[in-house]
C-alpha cells in the first residue's frame, strides 16, 4: 500500500527533519529561512494527507486540513516577506547575514 496515509506522513516527517537540519546548521540567514520553508511545506503535506484520508461526513470535515494548509501558506508568505526584509536590514547594518554573529538575545 504505497499510497496509504503512512507514506505521506513519513514523507512529511523526512522533509521536516531535513528542513530542521537546514534551519539549525546554516550560517546564512537566507539559508535558515529556506530550511524553515521546507519544514512548512512538510507540515502542509501532512495536513493535506490527513484531509484526503479523512472519512468524516460533517460539512467541510474532509477539507479542514486543506483550509489549514491555506492559512499556513498565507502566514508563511507573510513570514517570508518580513524575514527577508529583516535579513536585508541586518545586512545593511552589519554587512553580513551570518546568524551565528547575531547573539544579542542573551541574559
Amino acid at each position, binding site marked *: 500500500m504505497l499510497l496509504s496515509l503512512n507514506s505521506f506522513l513519513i514523507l512529511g516527517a523526512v522533509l521536516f527533519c531535513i528542513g530542521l537540519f537546514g534551519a539549525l546548521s546554516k550560517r*546564512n540567514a537566507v539559508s535558515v529561512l529556506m530550511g524553515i520553508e521546507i519544514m512548512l511545506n512538510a507540515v502542509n503535506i501532512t495536513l493535506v494527507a490527513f484531509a484526503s*484520508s479523512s472519512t468524516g461526513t460533517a460539512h467541510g470535515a474532509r477539507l479542514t486540513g486543506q483550509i489549514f494548509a491555506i492559512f499556513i501558506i498565507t502566514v508563511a508568505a507573510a513570514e517570508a516577506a518580513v524575514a527577508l526584509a*529583516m535579513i536585508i536590514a541586518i545586512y545593511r547594518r552589519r554587512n553580513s547575514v551570518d546568524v551565528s554573529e547575531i547573539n544579542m538575545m542573551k541574559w
Partner: protein
Amino acid sequence: MDLASISFLILAAILVGSALAVVLMKNIVRAALFLAALFGAASGIYVLLNADFIAIVQILVYAGAVTILILFSIMLTQNPNSQSSNPGNHQWFIAAIVAAGLCAAIVFSFAQNSAIANGAGNAVTAASTNNTVVIGNLLYSPTTYSYVLPFEIASLVLLVAIVGAIVIGRED
C-alpha cells in the same frame, strides 16, 4: 503498481533529493533553485492527494513568489568575499543528530501505530466533487459554517506583514 504509485515514488524522490540539495549545496543560489524544484514537486503531491486548489496556490505562492523573494534577497545580501555562500555552522553535527533522531522517532511511531498504518486505507480518494468550490464555500460562506473570520484575520496579517516588510527593509 499503478500510475499514482509510480508518480508518488518519483515525486517523493524529487522532494527528498531537492530538500537534501537545498541544505547541502555549497552555493546558495543553487540551493534556492533546488528549493523551487521542491516547491513544484510538493504541488505534485497535492495533486496526488486530490487537493488541486492547494496545488495551484502552492505553485503561485511558493514556487512563484517566495522563490523569487529568496533569490532577490540572496542577490541583495551576496557577500563577494566569502568563499562559500552557504556555510554550515559549528553545531551542524548536533543538528544532524537531532534531525536524524527526530526523524527516526517519528517514522518509528508511524510504523508502530497500527491505527494510522492500517485503518485509514488509501489516502487518495476519488474526486467526488469539485474541491475548489467546497473550499470556497468553507472559506467565505456567510450563511453556513465557515472560516470567514480567520480568513479576514489572515488577510490582516498579510497586510501587516507587507507594511512591516516595507518598514523594516526601508533604507534610512
